[in-house]
């Protein structure tokens, strides 16, 4: 209806308006793009550039080292490096367990809050989101004190009951780390899923109820499929987080030798850059980790989307 009222004159103004809109858009985007370029694109390009070189000393190494172009040799070394593969295998095992556990918890909590079955909804929601507001390192230190025998009330209680209490043993420590990250991130993922649930039109649920669906059926057959994109998003965040695992094991490392020197891929990169002083290889390994994360996330995305299409 509106278009029919436009005179040629107003149409021209409109067109000029579009061009101006773009100019304004660029002005508003500029600060972001500038920062993005300086702090993201340039460092990434720099890292990729670094990864193609190799610093070589000779003899005793006290004379100046040479930096030579090394092609893809750093990458070839990374892909067969047993230290990197062990660390990657460890975080994969961790991710296979931790990510589903955390997401099921987050989804269950989001559904409960959405259903209105919970009293004190606001307070509880706030409470479950709170760990996310605690900086990662601080959260790890808090938990570290709960794992240390002789100081932790939890360990003391388990010991008096003669139950297993060694959270830092070689086999338990990975799951003690998983517990810290689950504590930290469940609330955050819950909020994402919960917001998606709140955005759903309520009349669908009423229609379902009229058709005789119970609360459980509404949740499983209507709500979960409708918020599936949000769940996929949280899964992606979590997988990326899994590969980035760094500060939690670094903190627990001060407490136990069972978190080894190159426990996760990121710790390996850190040690290469600042312990071994091999920034070129460190750059190559970080590129490999980034690409692996990217591929894995894409793979998961494809897999999950095929799953929904088949429905």
């Amino acid at each position, binding site marked *: 209806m509106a278009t029919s009222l436009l005179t040629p004159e107003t149409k021209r103004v409109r067109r000029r308006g579009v061009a101006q809109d773009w100019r304004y858009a660029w002005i508003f985007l500029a600060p972001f793009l500038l920062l993005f370029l300086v702090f993201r694109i340039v460092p990434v390009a720099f890292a990729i550039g670094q990864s193609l070189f190799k610093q070589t000393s000779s003899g005793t190494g006290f004379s100046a080292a040479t930096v030579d172009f090394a092609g893809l040799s750093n990458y070839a070394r990374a892909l067969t490096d047993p230290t990197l593969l062990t660390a990657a295998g460890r975080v994969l095992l961790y991710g296979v367990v931790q990510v589903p556990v955390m997401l099921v918890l987050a989804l269950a909590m989001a559904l409960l809050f959405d259903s209105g079955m919970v009293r004190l909804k606001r307070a509880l929601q706030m409470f479950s989101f709170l760990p996310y507001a605690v900086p990662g390192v601080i959260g790890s230190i808090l938990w570290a004190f709960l794992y240390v025998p002789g100081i932790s009330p939890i360990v003391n209680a388990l010991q008096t009951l003669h139950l297993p209490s060694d959270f830092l043993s070689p086999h338990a420590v990975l799951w003690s780390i998983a517990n810290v990250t689950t504590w930290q991130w469940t609330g955050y993922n819950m909020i994402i899923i919960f917001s998606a649930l709140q955005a759903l039109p309520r009349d669908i649920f009423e229609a379902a109820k009229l058709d005789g669906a119970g609360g459980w059926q509404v949740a499983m057959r209507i709500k979960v499929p409708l918020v599936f994109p949000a769940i996929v998003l949280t899964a992606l965040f979590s997988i990326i987080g899994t590969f980035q695992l760094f500060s939690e094991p670094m903190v627990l490392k001060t407490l136990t030798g*069972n978190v080894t020197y190159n426990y996760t891929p990121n710790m390996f990169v850190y040690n290469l850059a600042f312990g071994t002083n091999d920034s070129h290889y460190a750059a190559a390994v970080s590129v490999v980790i980034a690409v692996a994360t990217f591929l894995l996330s894409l793979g998961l995305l494809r897999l999950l989307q095929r799953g929904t299409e088949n429905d």
Partner: protein
Amino acid sequence: MKSRTNRLAIAVVALATAAALGGCTAGAGAEQSQGSGTTTLKFWSWNDMSAATEAWNKANPHIKVEFEKLASEQDYFSKVSAAVTSGKNAPDVVQVDYTNLPSNVVAGLVQDISKYTGDVKKSFSAANWNQVEVGSGVYGIPQDTAPLVLYYRKDIFEQDGLSAPKTWAEYEKAAAVIKANQPNSYISSFASNGAAWFAALCQQSGAQWYKVNASSWSVNIDDPKCKAVADYWQGMLDKQYVKGDQNWQPAWFKRFADGTYVSWIGPAWGTAALKTNAPDLSGKWAVAQLPSWKAGENTSAFWGGSALAVTKSSANAADAVKFITWLNTSSQAQKLLNNELGIFPSAKNGSSLRAFTSPDPYFSGQKLGPIFAAASSGKASQWTWGPTETDTEGALNDGFASAINGTTKLDDVLEKAQQQTVAAMKQKGLKVK
């Protein structure tokens, strides 16, 4: 709607991976500050040396030193290496522990100052000066030295009819007595993060992990003498005379305070750790010389200690050496540093500081100066640290943790560390004989 989430998700993945990449390059900004007419030196350390620096600035207005304490020793070297490599806002003077000095030399972070040091060498014992010599160069002025001594609970040892063990065999016998009389106690802990501590014990046994030849390195981490040390501690672990434990963490400190550990093979700088974490045990501890392998033998071992070095990016090396020489040898600076940090200075005049010549009530009224001086005057093998020491320590500590868990033996840990170290050095292009 589905395709939009798809695109969003890919964008998110791309962004986050970019963040991961970006994280590995540290930025350095700000320009170098230069006073007019005077030299300005930047001085970084993980210890607070501001009072001594101020005293220098008052007396030497033409060489102004700006001191900056960096948060923790853990990320200290990453900051130093980022700053010196980029050359921007880089310090002139840095603290480097002896363990990391050769790797800093190989990494090109510190410079040879032998043409400026003159006769400073005379202020130090040969063993202490040896710590800053790498190859044919001098890469710092020694600050503090850390002879190992035996800290022990005098009250419990006396109660069990024991005196301070003089040999390692006596130490093991004492451990058995303590285990029998106090079933919940151990004579000490064996550290899962004790690579540097273990290196000191190997040094005492006469082993030499590294040697610098004309154009190559020799690496002998699995030296038979060092393996004998490993066998000794493996036995102590197997008999449960010592408890495998991560050192320097709250539970470990608590076990000193509650009497779980009744002795500690610790460094001279360790007095503060005991006093702070087990204040109630004042007067119950005593210090003795490190047990030796043969009776009557006087041998030394060193754990930690550090030097002040001049960075490769510094344009004022001569002035920097003047400053660190004053800081590490003048009695005024020694006194201030000792007040602030409680360190045992490397310079010969260090042991005459009042803090070390007056009786220490925490250690049953003993005077620590003569004890530490004696502990650092014994026979010790020439010790050079390796150029890939962080990796070697990583390998050793990972191995110690496995040995404590019973999945490997300390002997094998040394062999594996030897292999990994040689491989890491060759990877850098270094020659290993």
